[in-house]
């Protein structure tokens, strides 16, 4: 499934269970299976979209790759280095090469720091620039995300949502990373600003030769920016393929249902097409169903779906799907 030389990031058998504790002794009574055994890779220079409903483990996956949790299982190979084997200090240094853009532009900026301090902090942390060079680089970062350098002395609350997200992007770019996890970077923004930010991210990717893991729940946004797309459901990847292939030829019933929910901006077309409305809720990740995770909501569920968990199968080219219907 992978070619070690051109893959920038490789995730192997990633598990992330959050313990549910009870009582005075904090006994572990159950696990929230946020990420339940997933593997994928991201090639150098490409953008992998990661979609799924709320609570399916998208964000957790992104944060696991960046080693922001202590108790994950599995291996994360970044540019040939296994991040899970690094010591704390080594990992801290490695963070230079991988950055995170957050969903909420209001919560992710320290309210007591000025925009300049926020953007310059990574430079200071990694000792990359000092004095005049530092000031020049911060000004350059401001311009890179289409903000004015004179705004450096303002505090986050003096900026709009879109501007704050630009500050977050500039902070991620400060250390010249090669890989950025974009964790729903536009979900908290107005639709008009979403497009601006997406265009900015695309431009930066091309100019700076970045690799993205683009997490979102909006399929139309993902389609625009991604080379390949992975669909997650309840902690597992159900389908992964190139963006065009996914939209043209979805195989997993969940992907099909998800795509049918994307609004089409043409009432005539929208009225005639078939919409699949899923019944029920996403099962609890504490106690996922037996067999295929999707079987309680799947219209085409068979007996085998309630017994056996389907594996990700290659159906030709780069198209992989985890469904018993797929041969």
């Amino acid at each position, binding site marked *: 499934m992978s070619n070690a030389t051109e893959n920038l990031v490789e995730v192997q058998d990633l598990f992330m269970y959050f313990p549910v504790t009870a009582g005075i002794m904090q006994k572990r009574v159950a696990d929230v299976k946020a990420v339940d055994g997933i593997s994928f890779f991201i090639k150098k220079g490409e953008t992998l979209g990661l979609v799924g409903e709320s609570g399916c483990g998208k964000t957790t996956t992104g944060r696991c790759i960046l080693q922001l949790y202590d108790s994950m299982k599995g291996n994360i190979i970044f540019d040939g280095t296994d991040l899970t084997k690094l010591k704390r200090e080594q990992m801290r240094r490695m963070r*230079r090469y991988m950055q995170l853009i957050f969903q909420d532009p209001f919560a992710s900026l320290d309210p007591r*720091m000025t925009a300049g301090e926020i953007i310059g902090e*990574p430079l200071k942390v990694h000792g990359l620039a000092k004095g005049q060079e530092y000031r020049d680089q911060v000004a350059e970062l401001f311009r890179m995300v289409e903000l004015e350098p004179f705004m450096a002395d303002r505090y986050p609350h003096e900026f709009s949502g879109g501007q704050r997200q630009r500050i977050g992007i500039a902070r991620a770019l400060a250390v010249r990373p090669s890989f950025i996890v974009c964790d729903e970077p536009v979900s908290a923004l107005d639709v008009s600003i979403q497009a601006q930010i997406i265009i900015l991210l695309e431009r930066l990717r091309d100019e700076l030769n970045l690799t993205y893991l683009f997490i979102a729940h909006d399929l139309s946004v993902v389609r625009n920016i991604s080379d390949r797309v992975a669909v997650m459901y309840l902690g597992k990847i159900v389908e992964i393929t190139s963006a065009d292939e996914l939209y043209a030829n979805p195989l997993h019933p969940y992907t099909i249902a998800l795509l049918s929910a994307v609004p089409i901006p043409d009432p005539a077309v929208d009225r005639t097409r078939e919409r699949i409305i899923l019944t029920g809720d996403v099962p609890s990740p504490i106690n996922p169903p037996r067999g295929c995770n999707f079987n309680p909501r799947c219209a085409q569920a068979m007996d085998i779906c309630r017994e056996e968990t389907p594996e990700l199968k290659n159906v030709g080219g780069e198209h992989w799907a985890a469904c018993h219907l797929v041969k």
Partner: protein
Amino acid sequence: MSDRAVGAAGGPVLEARRHFWLVDFFIRLVREKPMGTFGGVIVLILLVVGIFADLLAPFGYNYINLKAIMVPPSAGYILGTDNIGRDLLSRIIHGARISMYVGLGAATLDVVVATLIGLISGYFGGKVDLILQRFVDAVIVFPALFFYLAVMAIVGPGLLQVIFCIGILTGIGSSRLVRSAVMGAKQNVYVDAAKSIGSSNARILIRHILPNVFAPIIIIFTIAMGAAIIAEASLSFLGFGIPPPIPSWGGMLSGPSRKYMVDAPWMAIWPGLALSLVVYGINMFGDALRDLLDPRLRGGVGGMGAYGSERASKALAKRTEKGLRARAQKSE
């Protein structure tokens, strides 16, 4: 500094708020918290009297006039004299200096100890927190005065000993407040952001957590100040605090004052009054500070926060009320 000037061109309103937040704060204090203002004035008087005690006091604190023993309040001795002929006003003024030393010194130490323990315990959590907090529990459950007495009995009486003893012991107790504030602050996404850019734990603690738990720390300081002054007075009253002849308000209440309470009640009344007034003032000021600085009462984006919106809604209510009344009059 020139960068700042350029920035100022962007938003004059916001700029004004940023530069004069302290002034803004005092306006709020005076307008919204009259009792807090009263308390603040008392604290200010304590500080001024404490600092300039040598200039303000008409006599030295230990100047004895054997011809004026237990003189009631009069023109020469405004507050009267004690049983060995010392001017009570001068002793109260010098006592203010001691109270100021103890209040500021112990409260500073309190805050330092509380911040250290609270930051470490709250940020690292887990086993570190468990062990540290059991130690804190052990100190908290012990009756405070007993603990002070025991420690003072070991280290001996004296101003520095009192400050250290009170500051460290109350600091361990107030670390709980800092800890809970830190536990709240570390949940913020910007702490994750700092971690993901590769900040060390020390940097996150000092640059991101500490500035965001400053409000509770200021509140702890004011509360600790009042508590420390009372604790010092109690210790001195019991003879374990500041040794005579240095005038401490607590010490002035004990011994001779009690003995001559019927003949010369002013000997006990003045230090008692000074003590009550100062601690009352500090507590009022502290309460007002807590209300004004409480992060739950402050909004995020507007800067003026809940105060601004509260004022806006009040103004709106007033205006609509006026409008309705005007309309009612017209229709009549």
